[in-house]
């Protein structure tokens, strides 16, 4: 069990080593695990954009249905009471097959992310589209959502940042439900006990 996790450490390392290259690069020879994917990452001191895709349609889309752009602001100032961080909004509704350009604007002096999970893996390695901004900067990236009604997790993966408020949902079409613990939207499955405070 423990060892299994250890092994995944190595896999993760291999993944990072192979999946990533700087400044919008495509797949390279040394890819072992995801050799058939186009991986892309833009990385600099301001942050990174990973798996951006403005051109390739998901299999189930015949055309880009809409071109949307929105800003996501992140920082302490957007935190709900009892939490530390927040996005300016925690739900983003987009039509199926929309091309979405997101600009993540970080108002804190630490790193924050806007990472979407569960996208089709044939298009987005690890099923992920990722924006990360280091300090008071901004980063933009574009991705195209599939056609089915689904609700995708968007969060910041830095330790405790999701738990402390950086959890939201991208709702495609009418979505397929609401995720738990979305600030201002849904309840926490394991909420704090304010009655006893223990």
């Amino acid at each position: 069990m423990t060892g299994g996790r250890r092994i995944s450490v190595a896999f993760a390392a291999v993944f990072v080593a192979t999946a990533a290259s700087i400044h919008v690069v495509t797949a390279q020879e040394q890819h072992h695990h995801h050799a058939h994917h186009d991986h892309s990452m833009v990385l600099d001191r301001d942050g990174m954009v990973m798996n951006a895709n403005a051109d390739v349609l998901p299999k189930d889309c015949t055309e880009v249905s809409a071109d949307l752009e929105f800003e996501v602001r992140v920082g302490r100032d957007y935190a709900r009471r009892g939490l530390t961080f927040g996005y300016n909004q925690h739900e983003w509704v987009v039509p199926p097959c929309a091309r979405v350009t997101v600009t993540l604007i970080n108002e804190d002096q630490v790193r924050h992310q806007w990472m979407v999970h569960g996208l089709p893996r044939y298009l987005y390695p690890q099923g992920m589209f990722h924006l990360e901004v280091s300090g008071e900067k901004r980063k933009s990236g574009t991705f195209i959502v599939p056609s089915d009604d689904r609700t995708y997790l968007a969060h910041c993966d830095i330790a405790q940042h999701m738990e402390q408020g950086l959890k939201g949902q991208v709702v495609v079409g009418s979505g397929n439900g609401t995720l738990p613990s979305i600030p201002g939207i849904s309840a926490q499955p394991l909420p704090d006990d304010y009655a006893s405070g223990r």
Partner: protein
Amino acid sequence: MQWPLNRSGLATRNYLVDRVRPNVAGSVTENSSASGTSAVRFAYLIGVLAAFALTLWNIPPAYLSAEWAAYRNSWMGGSKYTEAPPSRTVSVAELDIDEICSPDFDTWRTAHRIDGVEIEAVSDCAPDNPWDIAVSVRGANNVTEATLMQSLFAPDAVEKGDDRDGDGDPDVIDIRLEVMELNGKSPDGSEVVPQFEIGPGITPGFWVFAPKTRGMTTINFESLVANRIVRLPAPVIRIEQGDEVRITLENSHYLPHTIHFHGLDHPFKTSDGKGNDGVPVFSEHPIMPGKARAYQLQPRHAGTTFYHCHVQPHSHILMGLQGMLVVEENRPNNWVQTFNIGAGRVRSPSVAVREQYDREFDLHYLEIDSTLNNRIQRFNDPRLVSRSIHRGYNITKRSADYFVLNGRSFPYTLREAMVVVNPQQRNRIRILNGGSEGLALHFHGHKPRLTHRDGVPLSPGQEIQRDVFWIASAQRVDLELNTVNDGLNAYGAGAWLLHDHREQAVTSNGIGPGGDVSLVAYEKYLGPRGLPLAVGGLQSLAPFFSSAYYAGELPVFSGMAGHDLADPEQRAFGATNLWYFWIGILALMWLLIIVPLRRWRAR
């Protein structure tokens, strides 16, 4: 018959039967025959006798004196010899070495030359990643993109520039740290996040300084396990004497923190007049969540020092916000390894260390009271965490239950926290005691020599050689471990134990071997993938790698030829007998108290 219980029991019975008789008669209908009445009376008698026998037969031995137990045995035929129960068989899963030491690490153990950085080969089961080391030596701004991508560092985790003194190495160093929580609470599930095990299944909560990383904190989205650079202990930071160093703390945590540089030459205020000592109230305000602050250092002396948070230090230091900071002596062309992730062997030692020593090791000790550390696993709201940590926990009642060396307890120390040596070597060992108790560090088979205390070199006359070093809280000692087999410095090759000799420290919450037990292991005593050779082979290490062992579920001695000292199977006055005993008591109470009472009332 000399059976007091029996006698008094009979007396009671006769008495009650006598008293009950008219009731029995009275309660039946007037039409009932004499034979009907006597049948009820007989059934009652049998019932009382049966309940009495049931009770007597099942009295737990613990309720009787030895004398009465003997009475019962002689009366009830329980005096035969009975064999003690056999041992419980305990099955321990086969030790899968691939799970303990991944084959993927094989390429990390060998010697490397990456972007001009020479990285020494190691035997460790879980070695440091060579690309992390190359970035640590050159700076993220001086390595190739491919190297940076194979590390987990952010592009500004460490940047090096400006050779001010023209001696061939960079003298302006920029370092960025973040504050990460390990084994904390999630409102979405009962598992702690992100996970870091100090031993099998042991996950106390921690706060740590981590080199600024990028991307996910976990190893991937499917896993809850923290990535390799977000861990306990905080990284050992190495700088060169005279370097202009800026260390920026990006407070990515939900509570305020600072850094205080203990034993390290630093001005009280920065060049722009801001606090630089990390102490709230007197030096500065704490760095609030989401904020960052730069500290400035230009150390004039070399030595092993200590950095830690100074906000509510009695809890924050012990939550894990502490690390070693080593100032290496100034030498030409001296590119020092800025981060030593997880401490342990330094795979790219400084010029001065290479001049005098064959190998260099950083050992960081810490003791943990999980009743403090696990408070972060109870709450999500930072106000509740803060109240519990800072007001609910009373450190004066502290009692440590876990003990770690380089963030791990035995047997995980065997994977990455051993001092691995060869004969005829001089090894430099830098030690920090980051806990709040003293440490009695004992080296089996060796008598190292104390060369520095708190970063200050001792003159040859002051240097002492011994096998137990008492290291005070926050103290650093540098030792020279000489492996020449002369009966004083060393007794020859072996897999020699290395541990804190306060006996609680060789356990994990009282289960041993655990705690900070590690080894001074000679390479020829290492087996596959750097695990030490054990009597009985690798398989004899298997029990220690199971969480059941540290839950106290495995016997200490099992499977030892000729002497079976495993746990016996449970037997005899077990649950069933106890049930019968109480059923008998209840039946007696019903027959002897309730029934007569009801008859009496009905009359």
